[in-house]
């Protein structure tokens, strides 16, 4: 139970934010004028869409980031490291809005440019985090494992990954929060996400809808964070 304790804070915060974006609660912010709260069905549709997009982007980034991180930390592929680092730094220097805008004429409106932005912007943090976590494994532990006769694959599975687990979970948490935030930007390319009521609210002064979009996006980020923290806690118990 104690392993799950760190997840309680984000979980409660996420639930509170989710409750705050319910139309009955958010409507308290102000009524009349342009302030019209979104209905619950519309909001849950948007949230589901947002979560699907963010989760697919996150899954892609996590696989690619972890995979590339594993590859470049193998001594055999050390030569690739510089090139992959440069490429990832380049991808990070291009802001998500610009990726979305550039992809618009090629990929059209909606989901695809958003997914591209998710992938481009998420790779570097995921890659750097993975490399950092794997490099934090002490060389002595690695040497000892090799000395008792483990194969490189066994060293990776039984020594490096368990020892780097907390760092890897950290990396996944950052990547998830980033994915949720970038998906909101996708609304500018016409993807229907929780960014849609925010952008529309900006244009027609609908503060309540803007607040609902913001709170719901933050709730998703915190709930996902709680889930990953819990998973990390469970993983650590298994390793210990």
């Amino acid at each position: 139970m104690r392993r799950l304790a760190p997840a309680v804070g984000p979980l409660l915060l996420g639930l509170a934010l989710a409750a705050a974006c319910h139309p009955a609660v958010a409507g308290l912010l102000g009524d009349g004028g342009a302030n019209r709260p979104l209905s619950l069905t519309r909001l849950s549709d948007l949230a589901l869409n947002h979560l699907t997009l963010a989760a697919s982007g996150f899954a892609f980034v996590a696989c690619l980031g972890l995979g590339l991180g594993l590859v470049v930390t193998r001594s055999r592929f050390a030569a690739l490291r510089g090139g992959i680092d440069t490429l990832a730094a380049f991808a990070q220097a291009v802001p998500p809005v610009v990726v979305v805008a550039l992809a618009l004429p090629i990929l059209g409106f909606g989901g695809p440019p958003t997914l591209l932005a998710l992938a481009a912007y998420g790779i570097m943090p995921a890659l750097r985090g993975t490399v950092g976590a794997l490099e934090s494994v002490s060389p002595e532990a690695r040497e000892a494992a090799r000395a008792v006769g483990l194969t490189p694959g066994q060293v990776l599975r039984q020594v490096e990954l368990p020892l780097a687990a907390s760092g890897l979970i950290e990396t996944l948490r950052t990547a998830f929060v980033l994915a949720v935030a970038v998906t909101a930007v996708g609304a500018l390319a016409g993807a229907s996400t929780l960014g849609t009521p925010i952008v529309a609210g900006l244009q027609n002064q609908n503060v309540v809808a803007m607040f609902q979009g913001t709170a719901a996006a933050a709730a998703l980020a915190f709930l996902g964070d709680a889930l990953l923290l819990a998973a990390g806690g469970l993983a650590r118990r298994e390793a210990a």
Partner: protein
Amino acid sequence: MRRRIILGLAGAAVVPTLLVLLPLMHFAPNRLLTGTAIDAPSILGAMLWPLGALAAIGPGLLAGSRGRLAAAIAALACLGAFALLLAGLGHGAAAWTAGQPPAARARLAAGAWIGASLLAAAVPLGARRVDPAAGGPIGALALAASVQGLWLAGRLDALSVVVEFRARRDELAAALLDHLALALGALALAALVTGALALWRRGRGLVDLTVSGLQVVPAVALLGGLVTAASALLSAAPALRTYGLSALGTVPALVGIAAYLLLPLWRGLQGALRAPDAASLDAARALGLTPRQILTGLRLPLGASVLLGGVRVAAVQALGLATLGALVGAGGLGTLVFDGMAQFAPDLILLGALPVIALSLAAERALSGLEAAARRHWPS
């Protein structure tokens, strides 16, 4: 040895394959249409084979060999291929638009962008293998010089981005200045706030939580929230208007962007202050240094590279986030990007986006160079 050869052959195949498989150019009757795709042979003509050879030799050598001479040859081949590709594209565009109505556009397509970026990225990579310190900047300078030369010779004039640029030159210059002012202003504001927050010792945990919590709020929402808050404030106290405060424009954009920069700057500053180990701090205290002397003589020099790392991340983020400033009427390069998105005009989007990318990359390279210099100068 066999692995080297396989790697080299794979590297050699990449760019020529891309140039053949992907369309190099779209030819459209006006600036809003996508137009028809045109393949490499009909654009490059006689330049196709020398370009293909250089684009195979350069990356192939870079992937397959480790020597300095090979790296130098590879960098030169990539530079030549890059310049030849641009010249060929400009020439092809001129040939296709000749005799067409002035609204016709020859627009670079995916193959040209990806091929040119790969070749351009390979030049500093090879140059750095020849000379680790000076190679990168020299490679970048050589690339810039080749673009500048082609530009001055008028070889690129027929490309649609250049046509769009000539039509909006003044607008672009103004947007660029606004963008820089917005990003630097936000960076300065965030640095001031971070410095002030660092003085509040007891609130460190709270600041940590707030600053990282802010990152969860999407940027679009934060800007919108600030506009609403500012307009509520102004309607409650109209006297503020006389001080030049307004709900839309630069102020909310500056505050919003600065809010996101707090996290990298705060982490950088905290990391820098913790950089010296306990033994060095004890030694400094035993020598009778005052806390101020410890700060300027020990913590800041030892933490300089960590602090600069934070500034680098913040600067790159500021240049990117300033694009969103256009949403709240603060100007900047985002104006061109969003206008282009609204009109569905790819060249206008590019005209706004290319400078943003160039600025971010330049800031990233320059500040990481400074970071490395600080690490060399004050090794911890």
